[in-house]
């Protein structure tokens, strides 16, 4: 599989270079393998969302390059990549259109891109929602269903675009821990069916180790990989992995690194974001 190979090469992002010159990302290099779940862990406000926005095309980069499957997304010549259906973001607080029903949300991408006629898109959307156990809420508005369901609908909406990579920006941050553990299994289930590259940002180390093939622990602002952990717990996983010995060992191995960065962020008084 060669879909969704993302290479981040020496990327630097400086906010307000003429004025305050805040360095958010500092010479960050990271390669994400096709079909891999790559988890990015760092304290709040460390600059990891900046990195995701650069890949998605919502922010410019200051220097470096981001390449996906051989195509240069952004570089000093073209500091902002063009947003496209090959890289879909699932946002922290969700970005389902509240004025569209869940089904209409899900078919939005293929209809906009002219890939499917509305009727075909509805058939496909229904099938995918059913696959994710969401048939019952097709005709509800997002505001009428639980936040966990909304997040699942949003992932289905993303997958409807047949993306090479899903960019998840702390999608489960606002959920309670019980809902979260259910959502993790649901995400893995969707992943096993669709095998798409997942670039997942979080500040929750357990979540990262449970889901990821690899976990990149980032330094606090400016952000760059501090330690990269290979999670050698075999996929497919379910929640029993959480209590396995290896899981605990991996937490122990990385906890200090994460904790240290969290302290630095705390002392620097970084704002959320």
């Amino acid at each position, binding site marked *: 599989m060669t879909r969704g190979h993302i290479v981040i090469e020496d990327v630097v992002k400086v906010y307000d270079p003429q004025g305050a010159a805040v360095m958010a990302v500092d010479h960050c290099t990271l390669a994400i393998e096709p079909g891999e779940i790559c988890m990015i862990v760092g304290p709040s406000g460390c600059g990891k969302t900046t990195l995701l926005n650069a890949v*998605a*095309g*919502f922010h410019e980069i200051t220097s470096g390059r981001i390449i996906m499957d051989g195509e240069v997304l952004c570089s000093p010549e073209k500091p902002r990549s063009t*947003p*496209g*259906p090959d*890289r*879909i*973001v699932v*946002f922290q*607080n969700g*970005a389902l*259109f*509240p*004025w*569209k029903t869940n089904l209409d949300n899900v078919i*939005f*991408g293929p209809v*906009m*891109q002219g890939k499917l006629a509305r009727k075909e898109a509805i058939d496909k959307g229904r099938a995918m929602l059913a696959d994710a156990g969401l048939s019952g809420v097709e005709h*509800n*508005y*997002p*505001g*009428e269903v639980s936040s966990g369901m909304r997040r699942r609908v949003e992932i289905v909406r993303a997958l409807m*675009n047949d993306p090479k990579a899903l960019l998840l920006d702390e999608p489960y941050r606002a959920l309670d821990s019980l809902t979260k553990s259910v959502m993790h299994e649901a995400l893995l289930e969707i992943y096993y069916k669709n095998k798409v590259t997942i670039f997942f940002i979080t500040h929750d180390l357990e979540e990262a180790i449970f889901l990821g093939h690899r976990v990149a622990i980032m330094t606090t602002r400016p952000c760059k990989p501090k330690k990269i952990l290979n999670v050698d717990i075999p996929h497919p996983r379910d929640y029993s992995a959480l209590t396995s010995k290896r899981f605990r060992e991996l937490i122990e191995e990385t906890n200090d690194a994460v904790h240290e960065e969290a302290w630095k962020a705390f002392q620097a008084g970084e704002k959320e974001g």
Partner: protein
Amino acid sequence: MKKMLSNPALWRGVVSIAVFLVLWEIGARSKQWMAPEFFAPFKEFLGAMGFKKDYLPWIGAVPAPSAVLDSWTAVFVDASYWQSWYMSFFRVMSGFIAAMLIGIPFGLSLAMSRVAHGIGFPVFEVLRPIPPLAWVPASIIFWPTQETAIAFITFLGAFYTIVINVLGGARSIDVRYFQAARSMGSSRWDIFRRVILPGTLPSIVVGSAVGMGITWEVVVAAEMISGGGSQIGGTRGGGLGFFIWLSYVGGSYEQIVVGMISIGIAGFVSSELLRWGGRYATPWLKAR
């Protein structure tokens, strides 16, 4: 229906209105507020305040509800009374619809284009603090007929509120919706039609509801001041505002109250219609 009748809130409302009407009736029939001796010690002070010797404000000066009801049944069969309804509604609706037709695109263009905002907003902000009623003389001079002058003033009443709400609403649409729409391959037109327009709709509804209220306030005053378009319609069909004014001039105090209550009902009906339309246009909001 049975559920509605057993609702205590309904009965509280009924009792509240009934008590109000009874007190009003008693007050109106008493013909005297209090014994004049009671005010004797304050006579000098009250005189300094401009009150006439034996004349203090008292409810007895207001017609009793029963008298109002009598007067109402009398005008109920009078075509000119209904003509007043029609004229006021016509003016409110023409001004209001014009305000929507011009205000919504104007507000959206202010929100979406920096150039449009730079050119249009300063003029808008300079004119906005001028109360619509201050426009009455100028618009009577400017517009060819009284009718267009009144419609213009009602238009102003709703226009500013609608524009401000549309502008604020369009600007407060979450940036994530634009990002998501762009990622999924939307063109600029798609984003306008499928993100900006529905995203602004709730603010359009709110702005219209507030604007509608102002429109009724303004139309009544405009009708009183301008003589209700009496040149074209004669004393008939001057609108509800002019109906009140005529009743005052003619000394029919019961009819003044009839006119007041009629305007209350008219305003209530139009905001209910609007609320109903708003609910229909934004079905996702009832979920909250």
